[in-house]
C-alpha cells in the first residue's frame, strides 16, 4: 500500500485504527526521502533515530487503546527556520551551521502532542529572504515538476517535499509570500494564516510584524487539520491571538467573491491568466457571486513591504555576532572586527543586501522619508482591504504572475522581488491567504489561485477552498521516480 501518497487525515485514521503503525509510516517516509532527496534538495537534515523513537511513542499510545491524536503517526517536514530541540536549525545559513536549538518551537510542541512525527528539516532561502529557493547556503531546492526550474521560496523545501509525497504535510513560514509562492510553483496547497493566529515562539525572526508559520499540504483538508493543531494563543508570544479554529460549513452559493482589478492589470503569464480565469468561472458555476473591486494602493505594496521587512530584518539579524553561536575559527582583534568577520562570512549576499537596505531606511535623514512613509502606506493598504471586505466574503487573485522559471536565471534583486507582488499586500494587511492549485501551463508547470480572507476569516477561506477542490475533483500531483 502506497502510504506516501495518502493524505494526513487518512494516515492518522489508519494509525489510530491500527491499520498501520506509525513506525511503518516513518520508515516509508524516510526511505522515500533517501531515494528522492538527492535530486531535489528538499531536506537539509533528517533524524532517522529520533523519528522512529517518536513514532514508537505514538504506537505505544495506540497499543494502550488511547487515541494518539489527530495527526497520529503522520510524518511531517519542518522548515529549517523553526526551532526543533536536538535537530539542527540553520535557516539555510552558514551563520547558523551546526546550531542545535535547546527547545522546540510552540508549533513543534503542538504537532508532537497531536501525534505527528518530525522526520526532518526542510531547505529554504537563507533566513527566509528569497522567492526562488536558490538562496540557500546549502544548495538550491529543485522543482519536482521540472528539476531545472526553481521551486519558489522561501519555503521551497517544504513545498517540494509535499508535492512529491516525501511527507504529506509540512510547515513553512510566510512573510511576504514564502508559503504561497512555493505552493504555487509546486502545485500544492499553502496557507498564510492571519497575523497572530499562530505562535511565532521558536520561529527564527526575520520580520516580526509580518511573518506567520503556515501549513503546506496536497489537500485543503490536510492544510486545515495542520492549521487547527498549530494555531491559537501562546503565552510565550505576546502577538498571538485568542484564536480557536473550528471548520465552518459555508455554502459557496451566494458567497461574494471580489476580484481586485489591480491584481489582474499586472503583467501576467498567459497560462496563469487562463487558469485563474477558469477557476473564477468554476467558482461562479458553484454559485459564487463574482464582483470586481478595487484596491488602489496595491501597486505600492512592494516598496512598502521591502522598506518594512528589511528594517525589521536588519534589527532582528543584529543578534548574530559569532560569539553566542558561530564558527570558532573566526577571530578578530576587537569585538567589532570579530563581529564583522563572522557576519560577512556567515550571511549570503541576499541577506547582506537586506540588512544594508534595512539599516539604510532606518538611518538618520532617511527614516521619515522611507520607513515612516512605508508604514503609512501599510495602514492605507489595510484600510482598503477592510473596506472591500464590507461587501465581499473573500477575494481571489493569482498567487504568482508566472510559473516556475529556470534555475540560475540571474535576475537582478529588484526583478526577483516582483515575484511576490500578488502575495505581499495580504501580508502587509495581516490577512489570511490560501494558495490552491488551479491548472497547469503548456510546459506542465503548476498554477495556483490565491484566496484572501478578512482577518481571522480562515474558516470561510478554507471552506471556499474545500468547495473548489471538490468541484475540480482534487488537485493534480507530480509523480517522481519509481
Amino acid at each position, binding site marked *: 500500500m502506497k502510504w506516501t501518497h495518502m493524505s494526513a487525515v487518512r494516515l492518522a485514521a489508519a494509525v489510530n485504527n491500527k491499520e498501520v503503525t506509525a513506525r511503518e509510516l516513518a520508515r516509508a517516509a524516510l526511505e522515500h526521502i533517501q531515494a528522492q532527496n538527492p535530486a531535489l534538495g528538499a531536506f537539509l537534515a533528517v533524524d532517522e533515530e529520533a523519528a522512529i523513537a517518536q513514532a514508537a511513542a505514538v504506537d505505544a499510545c495506540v497499543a494502550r487503546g488511547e487515541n494518539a491524536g489527530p495527526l497520529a503517526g503522520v510524518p511531517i517536514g519542518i522548515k529549517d527556520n523553526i526551532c526543533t530541540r536536538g535537530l539542527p536549525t540553520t535557516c539555510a545559513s552558514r551563520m547558523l551551521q551546526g546550531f542545535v536549538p*535547546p527547545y522546540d518551537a510552540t508549533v513543534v510542541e503542538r504537532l508532537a502532542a497531536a501525534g505527528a512525527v518530525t522526520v526532518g528539516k526542510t531547505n529554504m532561502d537563507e533566513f527566509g529572504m528569497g522567492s526562488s529557493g536558490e538562496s540557500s547556503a546549502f544548495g538550491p531546492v529543485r522543482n519536482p515538476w521540472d528539476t531545472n526550474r526553481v521551486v519558489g521560496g522561501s519555503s521551497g523545501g517544504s513545498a517540494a517535499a509535499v508535492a512529491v509525497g516525501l511527507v504529506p504535510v509540512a510547515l513553512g513560514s510566510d512573510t511576504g509570500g514564502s508559503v504561497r509562492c512555493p505552493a504555487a510553483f509546486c502545485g500544492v496547497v499553502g496557507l498564510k494564516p492571519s497575523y497572530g493566529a499562530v505562535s511565532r515562539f521558536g520561529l527564527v525572526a526575520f520580520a516580526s510584524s509580518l511573518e506567520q508559520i503556515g501549513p503546506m499540504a496536497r489537500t485543503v483538508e490536510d492544510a486545515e487539520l495542520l492549521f487547527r493543531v498549530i494555531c491559537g494563543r501562546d503565552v510565550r508570544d505576546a502577538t498571538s491571538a485568542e484564536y480557536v479554529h473550528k471548520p465552518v460549513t459555508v455554502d459557496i452559493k451566494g458567497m461574494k467573491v471580489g476580484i481586485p482589478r489591480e491584481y489582474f492589470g499586472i503583467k501576467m503569464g498567459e497560462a496563469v491568466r487562463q487558469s485563474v480565469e477558469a477557476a473564477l468561472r468554476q467558482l461562479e458555476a458553484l454559485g459564487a457571486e463574482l464582483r470586481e473591486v478595487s484596491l488602489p494602493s496595491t501597486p505600492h505594496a512592494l516598496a512598502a513591504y521591502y522598506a518594512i521587512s528589511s528594517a525589521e530584518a536588519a534589527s532582528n539579524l543584529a543578534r548574530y555576532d559569532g560569539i553566542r553561536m558561530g564558527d570558532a575559527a573566526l577571530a578578530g582583534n576587537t569585538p567589532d572586527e570579530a563581529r564583522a568577520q563572522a557576519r560577512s562570512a556567515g550571511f549570503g549576499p541576499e541577506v547582506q543586501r537586506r540588512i544594508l537596505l534595512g*539599516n539604510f531606511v532606518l538611518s538618520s535623514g532617511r527614516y521619515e522619508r522611507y520607513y515612516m512613509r512605508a508604514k503609512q502606506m501599510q495602514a492605507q493598504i489595510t484600510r482598503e482591504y477592510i473596506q472591500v471586505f464590507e461587501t465581499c466574503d473573500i477575494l481571489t487573485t493569482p498567487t504568482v504572475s508566472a510559473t516556475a522559471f529556470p534555475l540560475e536565471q540571474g535576475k537582478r534583486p529588484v526583478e526577483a522581488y516582483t515575484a511576490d507582488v500578488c502575495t505581499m499586500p495580504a501580508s502587509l494587511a495581516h490577512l489570511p491567504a490560501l494558495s490552491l492549485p488551479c491548472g497547469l501551463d503548456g510546459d506542465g508547470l503548476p498554477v495556483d489561485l490565491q484566496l484572501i480572507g478578512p482577518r481571522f476569516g480562515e474558516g470561510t477561506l478554507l471552506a471556499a477552498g474545500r468547495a473548489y477542490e471538490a468541484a475540480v475533483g482534487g488537485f493534480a500531483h507530480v509523480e517522481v521516480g519509481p
Partner: protein
Amino acid sequence: METGIDLDELRHIAVLSGLKIEEEQLAQMAEDMAAIVLMMENLPDVEKVESTPMQPMILRRDEVAPSIPRDALLENAPRTRQGYFVAPGATD
C-alpha cells in the same frame, strides 16, 4: 529626486550593520540597492490615516517559571569559559 546610493554612505551603513563589503562589490551592491530605494522613493504621500489597531499584545503574568539551563544555552557557542561566552576583549 536623488536616489543613487553614495558609496561613502554605503561604507558607513556597512560598518553600522557589522558587515565587511569588499570594495569591488560595493558599487554593485549600491546599484542593486538604488533600484529598490527608487521604488520606495516613489511611494506616494498618503493622508495620515488612523492605523487599524492590531489586537493588543497580551503580556504574560510576571511569574517566575523554569528557564532553559545555562549549559544548554552555552552549547552552541564557539568558545566558552566558566559558564560565560568568550569574546575578543574591548580593551587591552
